[in-house]
């Protein structure tokens, strides 16, 4: 037989859990079909398939823009062809865990913008609310349709060295990546024909239809007018905005395409103004409405917030959800679940140190070699410090920055992300992965599409999976 992609012994990283291999030679059940297929696929065919995927992404226009020194470059999101596979039992747990978490977080948002019981009961510190830039006073006392603040979310999970899934962060503002879930699956269908139905992989392709249905649920009119508001084609996720709009059959609009009149929102069309019922916005709070927020913003719509306050338009996700996925709030989510739902959290948090607290700051500074320090308002893997990988000088500078404003930072012990086999130079090699399932909350509860974005740190030994930091993605198969 020709040589295939298997090495004599798959090199498990010491202390890391691997998604496919239980030991160097033993393959986990859910991977069996794929494994057999890979064994029977000569290496050169696999490499050909790999080359084909690059061409397909290019010709489909699946690109994202990376900004460095103010210059944008269009790139293909690196794709590893070996899928990540999750079995039905484990998925059910993830599903329940995320549903529980989102239920609590939505209740938290309602509470924090209304009676604030959680502050009065001393569960959540008042100063976190007072100091949080994402807490919007405009939202105080405002009723949002069906009390849903977070409609769309992408909670990041990782599998720790104990084999359990932990929540790394809740992305509750404008999480992106779902178009890659759809795109990756289409590519998998082509490069592994018949393996998907044989392995009983649950389909993900109806996400846009489901999203549309859920959004329709928030308005009473029979044919609601829904638009997707994008910051424009220079946004790094523009491809996703265009794809979702196309697959939902709705207009993709920019701020300038909308206008507010008498507290109603309209889109400007060749047939005149058309009233909008729901805005799925992919523009951050700060830029939504120059009359209330950033006055220099040209991405938003003047008067949008007042139309929203009058209940004339639904904004998805609601403004002000940033308080709930702030990295400092994260620490309190398990408490929230107990407080609001009287349940034990199904998905655990990673132990997190609040550097605003002098004792914890002291502990972190002493053990900084074993810590990951992040800014509470950062995202995309920018501005974080991985203690074990940083030089002494980097650490020194970072500590100086922390000391200036410790409340802006949190720290977590360095986590051993699970690894999954990737095709590296034609052979399987372990690389660290995380998982971002996408959830949609409607009037009928939260639905999570069976799958998600598995991001992978393609650099050997790297723990950072962000696309802006050299990460890639894998298709994620959830089995029935």
């Amino acid at each position, binding site marked *: 037989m020709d040589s295939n992609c298997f090495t004599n012994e798959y090199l498990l990283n010491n202390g890391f859990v691997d998604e496919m291999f239980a030991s160097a030679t033993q393959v986990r059940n859910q991977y069996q079909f794929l494994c057999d297929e890979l064994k029977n696929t000569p290496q050169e*065919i696999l490499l*050909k*398939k790999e080359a*084909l995927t690059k061409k397909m992404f290019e010709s489909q226009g699946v690109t994202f823009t990376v900004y460095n020194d103010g210059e944008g470059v269009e790139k293909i999101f690196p794709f590893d062809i070996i899928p990540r596979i999750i079995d039905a039992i484990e998925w059910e747990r993830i599903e329940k865990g995320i549903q529980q978490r989102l239920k609590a977080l939505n209740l938290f948002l309602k509470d924090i913008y209304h009676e604030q019981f959680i502050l009065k009961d001393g569960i959540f510190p008042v100063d976190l609310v007072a100091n949080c830039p994402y807490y919007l006073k405009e939202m105080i006392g405002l009723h949002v349709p069906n009390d849903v603040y977070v409609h769309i979310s992408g909670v990041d999970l990782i599998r720790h060295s104990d084999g359990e899934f932990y929540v790394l962060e809740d992305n509750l503002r404008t999480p992106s990546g779902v178009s890659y879930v759809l795109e990756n699956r*289409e590519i998998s*269908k*082509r*490069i592994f*024909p*018949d393996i*998907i*139905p*044989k*392995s*009983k*992989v*649950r*389909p993900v*392709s*109806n996400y*846009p*239809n*489901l999203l*549309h*249905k859920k959004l*329709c649920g928030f308005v009473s009119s029979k*044919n609601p007018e829904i638009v997707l508001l994008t910051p424009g084609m220079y946004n790094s996720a523009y491809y996703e905005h265009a794809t979702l709009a*196309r*697959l*939902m*059959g*709705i207009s993709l609009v920019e701020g300038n395409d909308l206008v507010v009149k008498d507290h109603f929102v309209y889109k400007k069309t060749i047939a005149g103004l058309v009233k909008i019922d729901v805005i799925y916005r992919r523009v951050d709070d700060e830029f939504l409405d120059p009359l209330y927020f950033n006055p220099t913003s040209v991405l938003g719509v003047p008067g949008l917030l007042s139309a929203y306050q009058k209940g004339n338009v639904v904004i998805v996700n609601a403004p002000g959800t940033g308080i709930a996925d702030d990295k400092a709030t994260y620490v309190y989510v398990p408490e929230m679940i107990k407080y609001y739902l009287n349940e034990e959290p199904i998905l655990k948090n990673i132990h997190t140190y609040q550097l605003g607290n002098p004792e914890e700051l002291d502990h972190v500074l002493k053990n900084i070699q074993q810590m990951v320090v992040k800014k509470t308002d950062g995202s995309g893997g920018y501005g974080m410090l991985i203690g074990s990988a940083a030089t002494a000088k980097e650490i020194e500078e970072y500590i100086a920055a922390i000391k200036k404003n410790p409340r802006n930072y949190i720290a977590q012990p360095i986590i051993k992300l699970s690894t999954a086999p990737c095709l590296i130079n034609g052979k399987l090699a372990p690389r660290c992965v995380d998982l971002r399932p996408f959830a949609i909350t409607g009037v009928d509860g939260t639905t999570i599409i069976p799958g998600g974005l598995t991001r992978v740190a393609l650099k050997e030994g790297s723990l950072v999976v962000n696309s802006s930091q050299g990460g890639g993605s894998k298709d994620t198969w959830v089995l*029935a």
Partner: protein
Amino acid sequence: MLSRVANNLFWIGRYMERSYGILLATKISFSKSQDYNDAINNNGALKENFSLKLQHQIFDAFHPNSVFSLTFKARENCRSIQEEVSRELWLCINNNYLFQKKIAKEHMLDDDPLKLVDDLLLQSYLYYGIADLTQERGSAFCFMNCGKYLERIFRMLHFLENNLLSNKDNKDLLVESIYWKNLLLSIGGYQLYLRTYKSEFKIENIVDMLVFNKSFPHSIYYSINKLETHLLRLSTDNVSNNQLLFLMGKLESFVKYTTLENIFENKLEVFINRLETDLLEISTKFNERYFSNY
């Protein structure tokens, strides 16, 4: 124009349209077979091997309606009347044929079967574009288009017959939406459907779009109108065309003055049968009128 030439042109139109329909349907049937679902895949029992199916539907030279056979016939038809069509059109059909022959020989199927279907679809689109851009609007153009639209209406009718008549009692929403999505994709109407009706899949909406939509180039009403236009253009010839035009006009009015409610009151089946009967009559008359001397 010679009857033989007219006949050839008419059938070039039909063969090319037919092979386009097969390609599109094949592409979607692949994508469908790769979606796992209990209800669709009957407890995991797999549909037939896609490569084999592809071999049959596309390359089987002994199968009269394989894409290869159809392209071969279109090319033979075109080869013997080269002087009547634009040079570019003849080259396009010829190269399409040569391309398929080469692939069939080299077994390029192994790596990625769908890539091949995509390439062939591209050849189809090329054909439509070249025909539109380079062929003068004379009788040759009309005959090709008569063939094209007649074939397209039959294809749509078969589509309605095969997919919408059977009562589906499966109420699983997910299965339903994937099912309808694939159906609409296989006739190139998914994007328009979403824009018109959003994500709500209803048989009524689908029939409405496939039968009545005035801007959907695959709808029955659109195709009937086009067919009528080309018949009218042909009738400026010396010989009178009255009977054929009468039938055509009658069919056009029938569809135009039928409502969606009418269709479902009298059953979709009755409507489809009526259209099929009328079209066969038109097609027979067309044959008699233009090709009987050949």
